């Protein structure tokens, strides 16, 4: 026999949002900052300021090694900081050697170069062969990094276009790790290798333009090698570097979009919990 125990009453119920509606609003949230820049102010962090200062302190003609192994589309998150770095390097009359350790680093470097507008074809001060060189893709992982930093010309014979290194003006000043002032890596995935090899073995300091996720994962390296390793923090790091270079680029657009998305995150978080609790039946 079923006994009637308590009366129940339902409180106000919110319907569960369909994914399509959430996606539609997400699209609008991303569309707004692309059409109307929000001008988000980014707080500077000491790390990014230090990277800027370090590059600023280099003498004209110093050579910076760039490159790593990564996937182009993932490196887009690091590209704002790397583009700002290239602009600063060109302004300081530094020279750059790009060493692609992944196949897509070649087009990625070209993309960043074009976006920075530092090549003479875009009205910039850099000339290929004199101010920057792109080496060919170097497979082999860690052993190839060690080999390159030990003796550049025994490891690589030509540039990416097949021109012998002996015919390239910049490469006359490049012999080994001591020829470089820094290794600036925008791939975001190579930091453990670079810490071990570049800093640990060859004492070549590393500037890493890393993803926001990897910043947290690899921050112990900053304490392991103080004064030898620095990281920018994803899109926010890119926006910070752009602020230091007094322009507004992809980093600022990204941070505008992140500003709105993070608010949207809290809206969805609150809505999801309200929906769940509003569906509970209250018993008298």
């Amino acid at each position, binding site marked *: 026999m079923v006994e009637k125990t308590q009366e129940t009453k339902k409180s106000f119920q919110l319907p569960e949002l369909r*994914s399509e509606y959430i996606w539609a609003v997400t699209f609008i949230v991303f569309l707004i900052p692309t059409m109307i820049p929000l001008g988000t102010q980014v707080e500077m962090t000491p790390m990014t300021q230090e990277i800027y200062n370090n590059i600023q302190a280099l003498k004209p003609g110093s050579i910076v090694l760039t490159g790593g192994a990564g*996937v182009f*589309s993932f490196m887009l998150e690091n590209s704002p900081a790397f583009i700002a770095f290239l602009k600063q390097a060109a302004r300081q009359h530094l020279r750059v050697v790009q060493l692609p350790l992944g196949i897509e680093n070649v087009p990625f470097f070209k993309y960043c170069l074009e976006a920075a507008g530092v090549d003479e074809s875009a009205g910039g001060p850099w000339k290929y062969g004199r101010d920057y060189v792109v080496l060919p893709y170097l497979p082999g992982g860690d052993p190839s990094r060690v080999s390159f930093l030990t003796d550049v010309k025994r490891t690589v014979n030509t540039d990416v276009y097949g021109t012998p290194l002996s015919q390239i003006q910049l490469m006359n000043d490049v012999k080994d790790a001591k020829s470089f002032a820094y290794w600036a890596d925008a791939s975001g995935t190579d930091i453990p290798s670079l810490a071990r090899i570049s800093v640990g073995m060859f004492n070549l300091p590393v500037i890493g333009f890393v993803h926001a*996720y990897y910043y947290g*994962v690899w921050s112990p390296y900053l304490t392991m090698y103080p004064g030898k390793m620095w990281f920018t923090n994803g899109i926010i790091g890119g926006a910070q570097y752009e602020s230091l270079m007094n322009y507004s680029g992809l980093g600022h657009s990204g941070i505008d979009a992140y500003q709105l998305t993070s608010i949207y995150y809290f809206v969805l978080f609150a809505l999801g919990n309200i929906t769940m609790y509003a569906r509970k039946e209250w018993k008298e």
Partner: protein
Amino acid sequence: MIKSGEAFALMTLVLFAAFVVITYYISKRGKEWYMRPIEALEVIDESIGRSAEMGRPVMCLPGMSGLGNMLTLAGLSICGEVNERAARIGVTPVNLVSAADTLMVMEAMVKNAFVSAEKGELYQPGKYVYWTGSEQFAYATYVMGTIMKEKPAAIIFVGSFLSDIMMNTETGKRVGAIEVGGCTDTTAMATMAMVCDSILIGEEIYAAAAVITKDKALAGSIAGQDWAFIVTLALMTIGVALGLAGIKLLSDLMVL
């Protein structure tokens, strides 16, 4: 002569290998080790049953990497068993692989699974295994499309995954599939923890790969793995204690 800095590593490798072999042979002699139930394996069993009830396929994804990755091998072990159980009860398995070498092994495994389930006449090459392309997001979009087309009742993601897992797991939720995940990459694991119904965390993947074959001796070798964990934990604890006391004995030993 041992290389400088490698003696400790060699010693620990030999020790861990000895643990695995010793426990394997002890198990073969009849000892039964207590193994805590791995929840994800129970969910896999339930999900295959659910697939049979609903008349929908079960989907297995051994990850994006090739045979050189340990996770792929563990994923293939689990997928092989899932395929056999599915074939036995009349559920269609759908397998998606990314690397070309994994494709060949998966085809052979699925054929073996059907033969073992005494349904060899139902097997056709190319019918149960699909190649998605080696690129990460080509894999993700192919998987998403296949999920929406096949509407599996259960999806098993065990292998090497990266951020693409978010797309696949969300799509699986849209078709109402039970999802079981396993990966050691922390980003993928965080996503799986968010979205999947059950996950295999860290070394549970390798333990599950042994347990799912129902070979007691092999499952017993997991005990050897646990002995290795105990040694590692002991070294960590002693190392921290000695380090705090300013004694460098252990750290000097480790760089021998």
